[in-house]
């Protein structure tokens, strides 16, 4: 029993440590990637003992700065809520990662270990719940600031998040129908099948291309990333965290990156086969032309984890690229897109999926 | 009376008038270098050439007598071409000195070249080198290269001063103006050659490199150097204190007035303005310690209160030593405020003997307004001499002795001055410059100099002329009139509010003083007007 607990603790440590570090790295990636896109050089200073490492230490410097900066709390605010709001944001973003399976089952002797912090049957619902609770951070931040602009910013942000949550949820119903499960681990396993004579792996993107696009768009809006960053609008628009400074602001900032990674993980898990590698079965590679390459379980797991990591990083990269490509939506356009664009498309997608599944006779 | 036509306009002129003078009457300006109305005609610069109908070649306007029916064109194509050609000749050997030349900006070569120059030069040869920067006299610097041989300066020394220092030597392009051997240009009117010189050949040594002429502001005024009252232009700079070692007045130029000084002025008056910026009294001083007679800086408020209290004490016996350097307006206020109301006895020391003079402009009396004081009744027959006033002060018969401008040490000797200073009598001094009397006074009130205020002088011939306010009063100094009016307010003397301006005082003065009857500050104008005693001249002016 203690052994199982220790294993869970290790897994949790690895996941949260990895995710937090990735979020930290995001600040660096954000700077460097935008610099390359815009023909600049980007942050390249902050040397430690003369080593600059392409400016990687700027992330460290940022963290130090955030921690040592004066934490300004405006007069008259609700101090408890004001302190609690950024914590809520980060907490719910972080715990959502518990349900993400980042590798196949590892078999060590007799013990079978799920590479997942918490194996939850209704993992998808759990993640949704956590994402929705993230709204609390936003609304509390605006409410606790005792600042009209902050409240307006938070109301705007809340409206946006709630609106897109609907499109997001409905977009995923199609996926649920295809996989027939809410368990993300099982959903990933379901994507191990192939079609077209074994040539094409049946990933979510193949089964639900429209769902994927809707999901991706809604997820970007849900995480308040560009082109949907109206609630934040770092330099131009008054947002819900105007009255925050120092590490409290840093936590909102961190939440932003965590949610981006979470969406990348979800997109990978649901639409890009999670830890699946094309043609790789638990016992080895089964290529469509008939060749086979048997592999040990630990190599299989290693390949799976690597595959998952690479896919997530690739999504992060693409999100970042989109962030530096597209201009921001206007608020009315944002609402139009959510309610008049994504929502009907998602509903139609569910209907079409149901009809197709009945026609194929594969559905329950 | 021949009638001729210049540029299509007809003009009647007396017999013997030259065309250039006739054109002047029409307001047509013909460019000239050698011609000067105050000198004989030389006709050597050829700049004033004009087109005359039926004349085979252009004629010089300065030496062409006007004849009946003459038709002259000054702006015809031919005339302009002639000028361009003349300028080309004159500039052949003229150095490109404009950046370092003090004449630049008021140079006739520059000005005419702008209008008529040959902008595409054809001169490829070497210019003839001559001597530069020759000190020909105490006031004048000669640059032979820049000279265009107009001979104005030669004619001036021959005809006006009759000293004949200058001559033109050598021939052709080596001709140069210079001094005769053994001569120095040190006659009392030497600096007039600088004004005459149309180019930068003759420049003033005192003004040399002090400023560029376009920095100068100009104010019309009257020279205070002697009782002649030559009309002047004061050239000053207020916004560039680094120039001229901080002195504000840079130079004085004579101003044309046919009735006083014509075009000229003497060197003594021209260069006698150092006192305006040197050793000036800039702050009110008060004696603090009777024994050591130590003075400290004080304020106008304190000084006016102190002096006013002493003056208004019942039965105060007041003596005033006035100065002929004061303007009529100051003297009038002095007379009204101190004399008429407070019963002050006003003395005016006579001009010191031995002042230089000649039969041209320079007068022996070196004060500018003695005539004006006389017209205002200062001193009248009843007032004692300055010495008598000082004696009265020593004897304790005076409560206040107010000295304007004069150095008592010069007037009555150091011993008496000191005796007057240690007595019971309150010694008030107001004046422009620092000297021995200043340190002995109980109160020192700094006055503005004549060029720092508006007012009028009456010259030796009885001509009332306006002094222009060129500069702001030095330091904390104030116009005499201004603090006399303040004293009036403190002693209960009736003084009129419009006396704050010179015109207002003058108007009252014209009412009160017969000699100024019928004049106003405006009617005097920039050329002056004669006061009443010289009635014959005044009538001549009116006609």
């Amino acid at each position, binding site marked *: 029993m203690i052994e199982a607990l220790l294993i869970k603790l290790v897994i949790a440590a690895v996941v949260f440590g990895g995710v937090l570090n990735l979020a930290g790295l995001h600040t660096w990636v954000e700077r460097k*990637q935008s*610099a*390359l*896109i*815009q*023909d*600049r*050089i980007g942050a390249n200073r902050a040397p430690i003992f003369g080593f600059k490492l392409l400016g990687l230490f700027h992330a460290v410097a940022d963290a130090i700065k955030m921690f040592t900066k004066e934490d300004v709390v405006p007069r008259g605010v609700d101090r408890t809520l004001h302190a609690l709001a950024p914590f809520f944001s980060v907490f719910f973003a972080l715990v959502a990662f518990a349900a993400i399976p980042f590798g196949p089952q590892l078999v060590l002797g007799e013990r079978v270990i799920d590479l997942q912090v918490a194996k939850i049957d209704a993992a998808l619902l759990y993640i949704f719940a956590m994402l929705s609770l993230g709204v609390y951070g936003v609304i509390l931040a605006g409410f606790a600031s005792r600042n009209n602009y902050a409240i307006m910013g938070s109301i705007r942000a809340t409206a946006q998040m709630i609106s897109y949550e609907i499109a997001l949820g409905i977009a995923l119903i199609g996926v649920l129908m295809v996989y027939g499960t809410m368990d993300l681990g099982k959903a990933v396993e379901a994507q191990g099948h192939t079609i077209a004579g074994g040539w094409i792996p049946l990933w979510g993107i193949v089964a639900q291309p429209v769902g994927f*696009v809707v999901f991706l768009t809604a997820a970007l809006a849900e995480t308040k990333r560009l082109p949907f960053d109206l609630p934040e609008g770092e330099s131009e628009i008054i947002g819900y965290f105007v009255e925050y400074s120092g590490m409290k602001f840093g936590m909102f900032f961190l939440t932003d990156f965590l949610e981006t990674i979470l969406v990348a993980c979800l997109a990978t898990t649901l639409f890009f086969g999670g830890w699946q590698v094309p043609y790789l079965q638990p016992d080895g590679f089964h290529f469509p032309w008939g060749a086979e390459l048997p592999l040990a379980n630990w190599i299989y797991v290693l390949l799976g984890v690597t595959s998952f990591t690479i896919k997530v990083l690739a999504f992060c990269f693409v999100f970042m*690229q*989109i962030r*530096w*490509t*597209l201009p921001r939506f206007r608020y009315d356009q944002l609402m139009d897109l959510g309610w008049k664009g994504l929502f009907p498309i998602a509903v139609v997608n569910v209907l079409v999926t149901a009809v197709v599944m009945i026609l194929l006779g594969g559905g329950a | 009376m021949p009638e001729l036509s210049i540029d299509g306009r007809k003009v009647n002129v007396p017999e013997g008038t030259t065309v250039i003078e006739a054109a002047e009457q029409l307001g047509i300006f013909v460019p000239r270098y050698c011609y000067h109305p105050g000198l004989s005609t030389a006709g050597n610069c050829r700049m004033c050439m004009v087109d005359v109908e039926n004349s085979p070649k252009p004629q010089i306007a300065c030496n062409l007598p006007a004849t009946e029916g003459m038709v002259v064109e000054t702006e015809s194509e031919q005339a302009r071409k002639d000028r361009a050609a003349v300028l080309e000749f004159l500039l052949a050997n003229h150095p490109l*000195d*404009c*950046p*370092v030349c003090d004449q*630049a900006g008021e140079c006739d070569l520059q000005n005419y070249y702008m209008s008529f120059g040959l902008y595409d030069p054809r001169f490829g040869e070497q210019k003839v080198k001559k*001597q*530069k*920067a020759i000190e020909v006299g105490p006031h004048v610097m000669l640059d032979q290269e820049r000279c265009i041989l107009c001979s104005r300066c030669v004619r001036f020394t021959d005809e006006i001063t009759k000293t004949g220092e200058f001559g033109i030597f050598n021939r052709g392009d080596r001709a140069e103006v210079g001094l005769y051997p053994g001569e120095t240009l040190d006659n009392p009117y030497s600096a007039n050659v600088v004004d005459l010189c149309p180019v930068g050949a003759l420049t003033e040594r005192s003004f*040399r*490199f002090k*400023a*560029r002429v*376009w*920095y100068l502001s100009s104010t019309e005024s009257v020279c205070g150097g002697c009782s002649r009252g030559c009309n002047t232009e004061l050239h000053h700079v207020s916004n560039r204190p*680094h*120039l001229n070692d901080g002195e504000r007045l840079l130079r004085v130029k004579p101003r044309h007035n046919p009735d006083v000084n014509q075009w000229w002025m003497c060197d003594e008056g021209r260069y006698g303005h150092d006192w305006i910026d040197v050793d000036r009294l800039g702050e009110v001083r008060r004696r603090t310690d009777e024994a050591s007679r130590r003075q400290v800086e004080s304020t106008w408020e304190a000084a006016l209160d102190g002096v006013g209290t002493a003056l208004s004490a019942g039965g105060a016996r007041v003596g005033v030593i006035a100065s002929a350097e004061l303007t009529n307006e100051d003297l009038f206020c002095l007379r009204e405020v101190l004399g008429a109301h407070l019963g002050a006895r006003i003395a005016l020391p006579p001009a010191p003997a031995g002042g230089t003079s000649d039969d041209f402009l320079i007068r022996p009396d070196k004060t500018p307004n003695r005539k004006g004081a006389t017209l205002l009744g200062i001193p009248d027959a009843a007032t004692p001499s300055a010495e008598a006033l000082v004696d009265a002060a020593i004897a304790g018969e005076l409560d206040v002795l107010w000295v304007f401008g004069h150095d008592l040490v010069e007037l009555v000797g150091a011993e008496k001055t000191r005796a007057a200073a240690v007595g019971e009598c309150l010694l008030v001094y107001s004046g422009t410059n620092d000297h021995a009397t200043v340190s002995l006074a109980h109160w020192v009130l700094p006055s503005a100099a004549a060029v720092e205020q508006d007012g009028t002088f009456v010259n030796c011939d009885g001509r009332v002329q306006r002094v222009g306010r060129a500069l702001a009063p030095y330091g904390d100094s104030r116009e005499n009139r201004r603090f006399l009016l303040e004293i009036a307010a403190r002693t209960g003397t009736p003084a009129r509010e419009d006396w704050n301006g010179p015109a207002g005082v003058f108007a009252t003065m014209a009412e009160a003083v017969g000699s100024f009857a019928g004049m106003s500050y405006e009617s005097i104008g920039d050329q002056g007007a004669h006061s009443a005693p010289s009635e014959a001249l005044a009538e001549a002016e009116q006609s």
Partner: protein
Amino acid sequence: MAVKVVQRPQLTFWEKLYIPQILCGLRITFRHFFRNLFLHIAHRFGRKTDVRAGVTYQYPEELRPLFSRLRTRHRLMVRGNGAPRCVGCMLCETVCPAKCITIVPAEHPDPDVEKFPVRFDINLGVCVYCGYCVEVCPEDAIRMDTGILDIAATSREAMKLDLHELMNPELRKPVAACGLDFPHQCGVHGGELRGSWEETLAALTHPE
């Protein structure tokens, strides 16, 4: 009132779909990204160094190339004998719209030069870098070609340049020693008049 009808561009079907347009945008950003990434890596290996990967100049270490006509800090041209070429004509002082130039001229021993400045100050805190002084100078005595752009000081006083710094742009405030041997109002020595013409003229029998 005239009404101007503005034709707003109508989106086509494919544009309304957003996705093709987003892909177009991404194509541009991806192209830049991978081009610059490739160039940066190539530069690490010393290749393709003639192509810049970014437009950035790393300022304190790497100075931006200056266009030859750029107006930078002033300098006074110097004659062969170490005296200024300036003849103190004060045209620059006259033309200066900011009135930042102060010149005090004096007599030069050579009558062919006649005039020179014993004091020539430019107050850079006031200067507007219009270049009129250069334009107007009849002697080509003042130029604005030193390439010095980092003009900053901690006091207004230090923004004022005198003959020392103007004749030798290498000098920076505070100037410690005076190397001028002709007469001048020496800013190094508190404005007193220093130097004589003998040494300066002995250095060269005739100016350049």
